[in-house]
C-alpha cells in the first residue's frame, strides 16, 4: 500500500510540477536555445481586434530572424515589403506560416495582410525596424522619392478632385470603350503619331487627354475612335509580361477590395471608404490622369479619401508595375507587348 501511495505521489509530482516545468522551460529557455536564430511569433487578427500582435519588431542588421505568423480568426495573407519578395500567401485560421529573414542594411519594412479580411483590412500592418547595432536608436530615414519630389516642384496637386475637366467631359460619356488592341492596328495602318507620344517618359507625366490633343492636331482627318484607340494602345503598351503579372498580383491583393477586380470601383469594401473608390476601367476618368500622379497617390495615399499609402509596402518598380496594370484595366491589353 505504501509503495502504491509513493508511486501515486510521484506521478502527482510529475504532473503538477514536472509537466509545467518541462513545458515552460522548453518554451522560454530550451526552444530559443535550440533555435539557430530568434523566433518571433506574430498573431494575426482582423484590425478591429488589434491586427498583428506584435505590430512592431526591432531587428539588428545581420541578425537572422524567423517570423511565425499565425491567423487567429479569419483567413489572412501575409507579405513583407518593400523589395523583399516575401509573400506567404493565404493563412487560414489557426494555420502558422513562417519565413526566415536576414537584413543586410538598416531600414524599415512592413508586414501586411494581403487578403481582404475585414472592413479595416488595409490597417493591418506591422513594421520591422532594422537598425545598425552600432547605433541601435537611430531610426533609418525614409528615402526621398524623385517622382513625388518632381510633382511637388511642378506644383501638381496630387489630391486634386476627381471631376473631369469641362474640355474632356464628353470622354466620360463615350459611346464606345477605347481599345488598345484596335489601337495597335490603327497605328500600324498609318496614323501619324507625334514623337512625344512615342516617348514613355513623356507619357508618364502627361494625360491621355493631352496626348489626344496632339494626335488630333497631327491627324485632323482621322476618326475620333481611331485616335482614342491609338491613345489606348500607347498607354497600355508599356507593360512587359513580368511587370504585368506583378502589377496584377499587387492589384488583386491590395486594391481590388475597394476598386474592384476589374477596376470598376465596385469592390466589396467600396461602400466602407470615405470617398467612392475611383473606377480605373472608366476611360473618362483615366483620360485625365497622369501615370506619375497615380504612382504618387499609390505610394503616398489619398488624403481624406480612405486610400491608404503603399509606399512602405512596394518598391518604386513594383509601384510602376501596378500603375501600368491600371492602364490595362482602362484600355485592355494589346495583343503583343512592347516596351519603349
Amino acid at each position, binding site marked *: *500500500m505504501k509503495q502504491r501511495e509513493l508511486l501515486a505521489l510521484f506521478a502527482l509530482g510529475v504532473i503538477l510540477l514536472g509537466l509545467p516545468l518541462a513545458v515552460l522551460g522548453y518554451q522560454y529557455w530550451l526552444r530559443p536555445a535550440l533555435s539557430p536564430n530568434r523566433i518571433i511569433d506574430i498573431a494575426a487578427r482582423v484590425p478591429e481586434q488589434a491586427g498583428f500582435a506584435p505590430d512592431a519588431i526591432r531587428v539588428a542588421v545581420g541578425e537572422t530572424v524567423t517570423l511565425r505568423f499565425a491567423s487567429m480568426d479569419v483567413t489572412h495573407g501575409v507579405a513583407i515589403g518593400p523589395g523583399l519578395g516575401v509573400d506567404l500567401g493565404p493563412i487560414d485560421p*489557426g494555420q502558422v506560416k513562417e519565413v526566415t529573414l536576414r537584413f543586410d542594411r538598416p531600414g524599415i519594412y512592413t508586414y501586411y495582410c494581403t487578403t481582404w479580411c475585414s472592413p479595416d483590412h488595409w490597417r493591418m500592418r506591422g513594421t520591422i525596424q532594422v537598425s545598425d547595432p552600432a547605433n541601435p536608436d537611430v531610426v533609418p530615414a525614409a528615402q526621398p522619392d524623385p517622382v513625388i519630389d518632381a510633382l511637388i516642384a511642378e506644383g501638381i496637386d496630387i489630391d486634386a478632385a476627381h471631376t473631369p475637366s469641362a474640355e474632356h467631359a464628353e470622354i466620360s460619356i463615350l459611346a464606345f470603350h477605347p481599345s488598345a488592341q484596335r489601337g495597335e492596328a490603327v497605328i500600324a495602318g498609318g496614323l501619324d503619331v507625334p514623337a512625344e507620344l512615342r516617348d514613355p517618359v513623356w507619357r508618364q507625366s502627361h494625360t491621355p487627354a493631352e496626348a489626344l490633343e496632339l494626335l488630333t492636331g497631327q491627324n485632323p482627318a482621322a476618326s475620333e475612335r481611331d485616335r482614342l484607340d491609338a491613345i489606348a494602345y500607347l498607354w497600355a503598351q508599356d507593360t512587359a509580361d513580368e511587370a504585368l503579372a506583378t502589377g496584377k498580383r499587387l492589384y488583386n491583393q491590395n486594391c481590388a477590395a475597394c476598386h474592384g477586380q476589374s477596376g470598376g470601383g465596385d469592390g466589396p469594401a467600396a461602400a466602407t471608404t470615405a470617398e467612392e473608390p475611383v473606377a480605373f476601367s472608366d476611360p473618362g476618368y483615366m483620360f485625365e490622369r497622369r501615370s506619375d500622379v497615380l504612382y504618387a497617390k499609390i505610394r503616398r495615399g489619398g488624403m481624406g479619401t480612405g486610400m491608404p499609402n503603399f509606399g512602405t509596402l512596394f518598391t518604386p518598380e513594383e509601384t510602376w508595375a501596378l500603375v501600368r496594370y491600371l492602364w490595362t484595366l482602362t484600355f485592355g491589353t494589346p495583343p503583343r507587348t512592347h516596351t519603349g
Partner: protein
Amino acid sequence: MLNQGRIDLLERMPPLKRVLKARAFQPAMMLLTLAVFTLAILAGLAGTPAGNRNFGIVFVWIVWWALLIAVLVPFFGRLWCTVCPIPAPGEWLQRRAIVQRRPGRLWTRGLRWPRRLKNIWLQNLGFLGVALFSTIILTRPNVSAWVLLSFLLAGVVLSALYRNRVFCRYVCPVGGFIGLYSMLAPVELRVADPDVCAAHKTKDCLTGNEFGYGCPWMTYPGSLQRNAACGLCFECLKTCPKNNIVLNLRAPGGDLLVADERRLDEAYKAFIMLGCALLYSAVLLGPWGWLKAWANMHTLPHWGLYALGFVVLNLAILPGTFGAAVWLARRIARQPQPLRRLIVDYAYALIPLGLAAWIAFTFGFVLVNGSYALAALSDPFGWGWDLFGTASTPWTPLGESVLPFLQVGVLTAGLLFALHTTYKIARQNSAQHRAAFLATLPISGFAVLITLGFLRLYLG
C-alpha cells in the same frame, strides 16, 4: 421491489466489482485525467493563441465535450465525475493520501456549508456565467486555461474550508448539468435492500471505515432514489460491510418520476440548459453574424445587450412561457395542485429534450471541427511539432450528409421522451387519463415549438 426490472452489473460482472472496489482505481483514473487537464492548461497558457490548433481548446471543448455530452452523460450518467481531475488535488489534500485509506479526520477547516446554498442555484449561476462568456472561453486558449485553473483552485480552496466535495456537489457548473441529465442514464448506483441500511447502526457509507471514506458527496446511499447527487465515486461500495450496494442497468429516465425530490433549482437548471442550447445554436451555428459579433464582445454595449437578452431569456422568458403553458394545462385539466409546484413538476419533462438538444448541437460542431484533434494531438502547443505525424492534417468536416438526419433523429427522440414524461408526470397529478392527457397538450405544444426552433436553426 426497489430493484425490480433492473440488472445488477456488479453481480453479473465480478471483475468490474473488483476494479471498482480497488482503492487505486479512482486515483489512477484521476491522475490520468489530471495529466491531460494540466496539459490543456499549459497549452492554453504557453501554446498558440489560435484556438483550433491548441490542445487546450480542441481537447477540452471539442473532444472532451463531445465525449461527455454524447456518450458519458446519456449512457453512464455521472461517470465523468468518477474520473474528473478537478476535485482531485483538494480531496487528496483533505485526505493527505492519494490511494490509501488514511485514518483520522479530514484535513480541513470543517466549516459548515450554508444551508441556503445546499442546492444547485450556485451551479445554475456558474453555468450561466460561463455560458455568457462561452464564445470567449471556448475560442481563446489563455482565457480557457485560466477558467480551468480557477476551477482547480476553487476545488482546493473549498476542500480546505469544508468537508468532502462541496465544490462538486454545490458549486461546479459542469457537475450541475451532469447531475440533471444523469437522471436519464440507464445506469444507477443504489442499495439492494434499503431495510438493510435502515437497520445498520454504524452507517459506514457515511462515516467511512478502514476500507474507504465516508461519502464525499454527502449522500446517504440507503435513501438514494435518483442519480443527481451520487458522484459514482464508489466509496460506499468499498465501505459497505453488508455488501448492499448495487450498480443497476435500468430503463432510462426513471429518476424524472421521483416526485418527492423535485425542486425549483433543478427545474431552473432544466430551463437554463434548454435556453443555453437554443442560444448557443443561434450564436454559433445560426446565420446571424451580428449576433455572433455581439456575443464575441466586439463592442461592450452590444455585448451588454446580448448578456441582458441571454439572462432574460434563460431566467424569465423561457420559464415564463413554460409557466404559461403549465397554467393552461392546470386550467383545462383542473389540476388542484399549486401552479408553482406544477411548473416544477413538468419542468422535469424538459430534461430529455434539453439533453437531446445539446447532443444535436454537439454533433453540429464536433463533426465539423473534430478533425482539428488530429493536428492538435501531434502539435499540442502549436509550436510546429509533429509527434504522431498528424500535425498537417487538414481541416476536414465530417458527416455533412448525415448530420441533419442525426440531429433530426436525436431531437425527435428527445421530444418523444419529453412528451412521454409529460404524460407520466400529468398522471401523477391527475388520477384520470383524460385530465392527464389534457394537461399534456399545452406542455407538449411548448416542447414541440422548442423542437421546431432547434430544427429551424440546424436545418436552415
